[in-house]
């Protein structure tokens, strides 16, 4: 058994070798023991410390707190802790000399303990722990904490920002779980859907979407499928949503899928596009509808016709397109003003629509042109009935500001697919048919026909030839002598135009004059004729035949031209000839068409000295009463009567009647187309004064005619 001294030595050695600092202080406050750790960290030998008080041993470097703790341990038996945090390294202890140079003291935790000896004297044991490592650990722990706190702060700032952004966004932002149940939503969602957050939380997204889904989405029966699908789209889908107040709105929906380890969720961004849709609809309306009448415009017509063609093709059906034009609308517009014109267009639009079924399309193509697409018909008769109904409805009186107006329309009809199997063809052919209806005297309808087409093709090519002819001066005037039956001499002729076509040769007037009339080219051609004829008259009168009369055909268009009077008088002045040398041949039709105006014009022309003759007399419906109103000089018996003379009793009767009539009105009579001696004899007997025709001469060039004059002129001066 080891004795107590041995044990004490073991214990002392244990203290000496301890890895914490140990100082023992006796009741007289003298240091009685320091261990190795103390020696090495204080960089002193134990001998320097023993026997001294703590204050002496450490040169007064110790804090009052430490001194007091030691004192109270010895005096009062108190134990104390001096923590590292509240006591900055109370002992000047260093890890090594290097640290001392740098002033880097060990971080210390100090226990001040009271120990009683056998005599109840209080000793003090000071234990010093090196907590440098713990301080370092805590510092990094704090830094880590600080970092994570900052990160958390940053995160909460980010979150607050996000929330602010979400709430200031002018889009609805809604988060959904994978089944499409609403988890969160921003403030704007409440605005758009006009409800409180609470009304939508935990509800399915389906509650705010309209069941009326666009084609691509209608196949989804559950929200998760729809969200999954939508999240894969690169663009927003347009669909309809329902507000909490049960209003349907248009929305754009964009869905993003958020996949985390725990769950799938979605973010839906909804934009209220109701206003945009309205604006689009308005734009669409403006782009496709005529603002005046509310009818479809040309663009929409195009769309509808293409659509109708597709449907008809697929269903193997026929359908008609009606091209409708208001007769003489330009005149109405000019004389009554545009406001009235617009009012008429509105009425006509209404009446057209009123004549049709709801499914049929009526378009205003501009001006006074309308086009109608009739959906599905079963027979052509059905189309006729529709056209008749339209014409009938429109022809009813229109009351505009106390005026009662009458308007008629001409309608051309083309039927798909016989009259054209594409847009251009069918539209063009309906248009052609309409012109045909105009030609047929307006206020009627015409079906397109192939013959019509060919005629029109020809006419169109001729029209362009005609323009070229005017530009290149391919015309020439021929003159046909008119013989005074009684005197057997010549004092007048009829100027007749010839078109010498470079390829087709000589084209007779009846082939191109009607076209020139329709196309308006007649004015230019007529001017040419008048100019040439006047010039030739001046040649003739220059040769002394002062009373010579040149008959010039004047077409209705020329005659109605506002400049006609001034032009023809100017021509006479230009060639220094008398108006009495010029006889203007007009048709019966012209007198019939526009009586008041014609009377005025004829009076002015007659007053100016021009002679007036009625061409082709007997073919129209002239009445005696009419003829009396006009200041006429001559009637010309149409060649159709003359040709049947002298055998045909009807021809004889008509000829006699005309001659008798003319004489009773003191008018001269000229018979045209006289080809035989018998015809001339007959006419001579009946009292006809002049003849014109192949019997005497065909129309001949001016030089030939001049030769004729030399030989047969009535006026003796010429033969001198």
């Amino acid at each position, binding site marked *: 058994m080891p004795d107590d001294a041995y044990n004490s030595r073991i214990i002392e050695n244990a203290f000496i070798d301890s890895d914490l600092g140990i100082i023992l202080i006796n009741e007289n406050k003298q240091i009685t023991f320091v261990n190795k750790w103390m020696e090495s960290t204080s960089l002193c030998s134990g001998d320097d410390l023993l026997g001294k008080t703590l204050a002496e041993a450490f040169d007064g470097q110790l804090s009052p*707190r430490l001194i*007091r703790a030691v004192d109270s341990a010895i005096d009062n*038996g108190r*134990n104390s802790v001096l923590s590292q945090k*509240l*006591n900055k390294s109370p002992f000047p202890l260093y890890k090594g000399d290097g640290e001392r140079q740098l002033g880097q003291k060990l971080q210390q935790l100090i226990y001040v303990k009271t120990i009683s000896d056998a005599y109840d004297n209080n000793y003090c044991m000071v234990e010093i722990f090196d907590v440098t490592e713990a301080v370092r650990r805590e510092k990094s722990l704090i830094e880590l904490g600080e970092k994570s706190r900052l990160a958390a702060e940053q995160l909460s700032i980010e979150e607050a920002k996000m929330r602010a952004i979400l709430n200031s966004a002018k889009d609805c932002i809604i988060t959904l779980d994978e089944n499409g149940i609403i988890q969160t939503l921003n403030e704007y969602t409440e605005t758009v859907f006009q409800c409180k957050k609470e009304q939508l939380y935990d509800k399915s997204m389906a509650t705010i979407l309209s069941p009326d889904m666009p084609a691509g989405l209608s196949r989804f029966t559950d929200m998760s499928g729809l969200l999954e699908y939508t999240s894969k789209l690169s663009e927003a889908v347009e669909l309809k949503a329902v507000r909490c107040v049960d209003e349907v709105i248009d929305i754009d929906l964009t869905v993003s899928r958020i996949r985390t380890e725990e769950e799938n969720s979605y973010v839906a961004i909804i934009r209220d596009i109701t206003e945009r849709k309205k604006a689009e609809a308005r734009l669409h309306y403006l782009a496709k509808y005529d603002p005046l009448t509310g009818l479809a415009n040309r663009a929409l017509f195009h769309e509808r016709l293409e659509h109708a063609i597709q449907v008809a093709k697929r269903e193997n059906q026929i359908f008609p397109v009606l091209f409708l034009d208001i007769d003489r609308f330009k005149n109405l517009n000019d004389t009554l003003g545009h406001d009235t014109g617009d009012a008429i267009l509105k009425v006509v639009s209404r009446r057209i629509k009123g004549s049709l079924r709801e499914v049929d399309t009526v378009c205003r193509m501009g001006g006074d042109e309308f086009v109608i697409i009739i959906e599905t018909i079963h027979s052509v008769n059905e189309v006729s009935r529709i056209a008749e109904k339209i014409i009938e409805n429109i022809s009813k009186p229109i009351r505009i500001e106390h005026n009662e107006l009458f308007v008629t329309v001409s309608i051309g009809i083309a039927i798909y697919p016989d009259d054209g199997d594409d847009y251009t063809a069918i539209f063009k052919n309906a248009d052609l048919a309409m012109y045909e209806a105009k030609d047929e005297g307006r206020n009627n309808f015409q079906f397109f026909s192939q013959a019509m087409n060919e005629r029109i093709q020809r006419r169109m090519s001729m029209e362009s030839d005609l323009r070229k002819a005017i530009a290149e001066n391919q015309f020439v005037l021929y003159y046909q002598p008119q013989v005074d039956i009684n005197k057997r001499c010549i004092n007048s002729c009829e100027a007749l135009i010839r078109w010498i076509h470079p390829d087709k040769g000589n084209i007779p007037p009846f082939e191109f004059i009607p076209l020139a009339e329709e196309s308006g080219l007649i004015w230019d051609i007529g001017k040419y004729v008048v100019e040439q004829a006047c010039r030739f008259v001046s040649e003739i009168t220059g040769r002394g035949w002062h009373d010579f009369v040149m008959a010039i055909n004047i077409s209705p268009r020329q005659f109605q031209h506002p400049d006609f009077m001034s032009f023809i008088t100017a021509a006479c002045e230009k060639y220094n000839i008398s108006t009495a040398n010029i006889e203007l041949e007009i048709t019966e039709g012209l007198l019939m068409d526009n009586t008041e105006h014609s009377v005025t014009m004829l009076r002015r022309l007659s007053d100016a000295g021009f002679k007036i003759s009625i061409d082709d007399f007997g073919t129209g419906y002239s009445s005696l009463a009419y003829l009396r109103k006009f200041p006429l000089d001559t009637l010309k018996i149409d060649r159709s009567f003359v040709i049947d003379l002298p055998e045909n009793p009807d021809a004889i009767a008509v000829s006699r009647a005309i001659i008798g009539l003319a004489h009773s009105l003191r008018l001269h009579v000229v018979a045209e187309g006289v080809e035989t001696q018998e015809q001339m004899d007959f006419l001579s007997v009946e009292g006809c004064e002049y003849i014109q025709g192949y019997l005497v001469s065909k129309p001949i060039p001016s030089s030939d005619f001049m030769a004729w004059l030399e030989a047969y002129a009535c006026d003796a001066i010429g033969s001198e």
Partner: protein
Amino acid sequence: MDLNETQVDFVKEIFNTGLGEAAVELSELVEDEVLLSVPQFSLIPSEELTKHVAVGEKDVVTTVTMELIGDMSGNGMLIFPAANSLDLVRTIVEESAGPENLTDLEEEALSEIAGIILNHMVTTFSSFLNINVKTGMPRCHQDTLRRIMQESYFIDGMIMFIGMSFEVKSLNLAGDILFLQNVDTTEKFLSQVVAALEEYDLD
């Protein structure tokens, strides 16, 4: 044994004095004014403790306990709600951040503060009552109040309950100081109070 008003005031004055001494030492340590006050003093059976402290049985609290040896054996204890102890330490050492629980170094700092308070309380009442009491090392714990009470001390004993508020560096915290001892010790303490007061020869 019940105390009369003067006797109670005497005890309170003892603890008030002890806290005053502690405040002096703490203010030197933290280089700022420290205010400690004694709003109440009562003697309670230990099982009634939870009625007197501001925290629930299941709340986590921080305690610093110190063994008392000698004429009045038992335990001295300071109790702070856990968050308060954290604020207290960090305010005093002027560290604004750190982990959610006290670190070892912080527990030691709290131990030191509590040790100073308890030591001065013990020193003061030893001196007033002419008794000899030694103290052990202050130890810091964090746990629920119930577990700390169960694991520790004198479940059948008496508690001298001293409410305390602690004000330092604009931080105002409330904590409680308890002295737990067995009934006999308490009786002895009280008789010492009566005896000591008689020496003042008042009235």
